[in-house]
């Protein structure tokens, strides 16, 4: 417990690929105690596992290390600690890369911690042999018959080991597959010394983490009434101003763009929501129907009243399995009669493939005429005669060769189809892997997480 209040915890990265200006401006443009950075989507783990299988030094979020190079001098000067899930499937390599950057910058007296134990890919045969069936939560099927297709397997771990690392004095905490809110839960648990069975406090911290985990999506990004959001180019990333009693304020640095209102915060509360009464994390079950939101000044929303109940005895496991191959390609069709010509183009592709003995099931092929209302099909009125459309074609199959054969029939339409076909860019569509997710549960006692720490003196 540091005794300071409020504690300021920001999220500067909602996903791998988010604007790098988020973290850079957060550390530079105002006070901050913790900067959290979220790099891992579900599909990212399988990509990282593949990179690691090709090179023992790969398998973590390399953007994170480049980011640290930009922000660490400011973080060191201001005492800002960094918590990220950038370790992917290779925590020790990520730690080594971070240490190399710290040394390159000439910064000393920094402790770098990694949290390990979430990656159970290598343990799957042993777990299955020991009676863990890892049944798919949707289909009920056991994992064993699909073991050869597994690309990655990670347990969604909670905030505890991250908080342990902070208690041991870590300045940079790097985890693998932790739940997104854990990055915020850990500093709140550490700073306020709350008990790990104080379910209301854990639920509060979890919801704080949920609100900020997608970066600017709670500060005016993706907001329905977008015309009212000022200066989106300079949108401020979110800051949790956390208090000892479990309440918190969502805000952003002064003089940044964007908007923090009850509406922008409520919007993000609903993002990727299931049953609001039972938001499950490894640390707590949070009840979103207890949340109270109220305005607390310009770009400030107070969040309070949150209740939680005990965590479940299991961890959720995210297992990525290879489910075949897919490819998509696109062309732009100019008018007149853009729609009729685009429809003809699609028909030609399927017929030419059939002429070469390549057929796809109905649900394995896709045609979209972008510009004729593909996102809101059947809902919004489509324009009767758009000046141009983008034709998107796609296929999916367990047969990679068939998918690659499809990719060869897009470009020929430019010279052997109707007139006005253009916009063939990016080369021939190639087959890429279809990754499916196999959600399963694993008893918590089967997983041990641990902290590894190294100090740059």
């Amino acid at each position: 417990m540091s005794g300071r209040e409020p504690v300021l915890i920001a999220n500067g990265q909602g996903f791998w690929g988010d604007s790098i200006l988020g973290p850079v401006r957060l550390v530079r443009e105002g006070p901050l105690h913790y900067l959290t950075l979220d790099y891992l989507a579900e599909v990212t783990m399988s990509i990282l596992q593949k990179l690691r299988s090709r090179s023992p030094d790969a398998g973590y979020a390399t953007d994170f290390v480049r980011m640290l190079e930009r922000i660490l001098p400011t973080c060191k000067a201001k005492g800002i600690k960094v918590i990220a899930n950038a370790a992917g499937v290779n925590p020790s390599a990520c730690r080594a890369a971070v240490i190399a950057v710290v040394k390159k910058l000439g910064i000393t007296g920094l402790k770098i911690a990694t949290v390990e134990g979430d990656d159970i890919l290598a343990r799957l045969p042993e777990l299955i042999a020991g009676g863990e069936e890892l049944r798919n939560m949707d289909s009920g099927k056991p994992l064993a018959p699909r073991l050869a297709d597994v690309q990655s397997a990670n347990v969604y771990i909670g905030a505890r080991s991250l908080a342990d690392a902070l208690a041991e004095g870590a300045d940079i905490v790097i985890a693998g597959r932790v739940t997104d809110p854990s990055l915020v839960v850990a500093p709140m648990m550490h700073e306020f010394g709350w008990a790990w069975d104080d379910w209301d406090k854990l639920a509060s911290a979890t919801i704080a983490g949920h609100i900020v985990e997608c970066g600017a999506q709670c500060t005016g990004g993706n907001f329905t009434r977008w015309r009212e959001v000022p200066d989106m180019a300079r949108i401020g990333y979110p800051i949790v101003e956390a208090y000892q009693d479990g309440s918190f304020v969502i805000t952003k640095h002064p003089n940044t763009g964007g908007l923090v209102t009850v509406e922008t915060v409520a919007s993000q509360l609903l993002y990727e929501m299931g049953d609001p009464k039972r938001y499950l994390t490894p640390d707590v079950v949070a009840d979103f129907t207890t949340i109270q939101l109220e305005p607390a000044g310009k770009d400030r929303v107070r969040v309070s009243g949150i209740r939680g109940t005990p965590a479940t005895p299991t961890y959720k496991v995210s297992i990525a399995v290879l489910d075949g191959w897919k490819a998509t390609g696109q062309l732009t069709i100019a008018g007149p009669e853009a729609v009729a010509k685009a429809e003809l183009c699609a028909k030609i592709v399927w017929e030419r493939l059939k002429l070469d003995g390549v057929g796809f099931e109905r649900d394995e092929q896709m045609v979209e005429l972008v510009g004729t209302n593909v996102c809101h099909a059947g809902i919004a009125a489509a324009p009767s005669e758009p000046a141009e459309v983008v034709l998107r074609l796609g296929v999916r199959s367990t047969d990679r060769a068939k998918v690659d054969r499809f990719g060869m029939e897009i470009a020929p339409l430019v010279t052997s189809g109707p007139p006005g076909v253009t916009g063939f860019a990016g080369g021939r569509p190639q087959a890429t892997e279809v990754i499916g997710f196999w959600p399963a549960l694993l008893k918590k006692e089967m997983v041990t997480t641990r902290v590894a720490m190294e100090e740059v003196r």
Partner: protein
Amino acid sequence: MKVRLSQLAYSRSGDKGDGSNVGVIAYDRASYDLLVRVLTPALVKRHFQDICKGEVERYEMPNVLALNFILRDSLGGGGSASLKTDAQGKTHGLGMLYLEIEVPAGFQVPKYS
């Protein structure tokens, strides 16, 4: 009288397995109470009939005046299997706001419309 749902509420959506979730948040209590009555899973399923191939479930969050809908099988495959442009249901929230809602005589449309 009919009004667009966008006059009564705002929204956000994202992916949830092979389905999407659409959060609809009312601008005021009267609109929320009305939506609890009329914005049924059956109506939402009909509205998204060309997109949602599975069941529609609804959860109530009166504390933030929100209804949360789960649109099962609405992305053309879960994980990375989808071939659609909107593989994550990012636009389903705005799609919901096109709905026409019958409001009772004398109903005060919220100030944000």
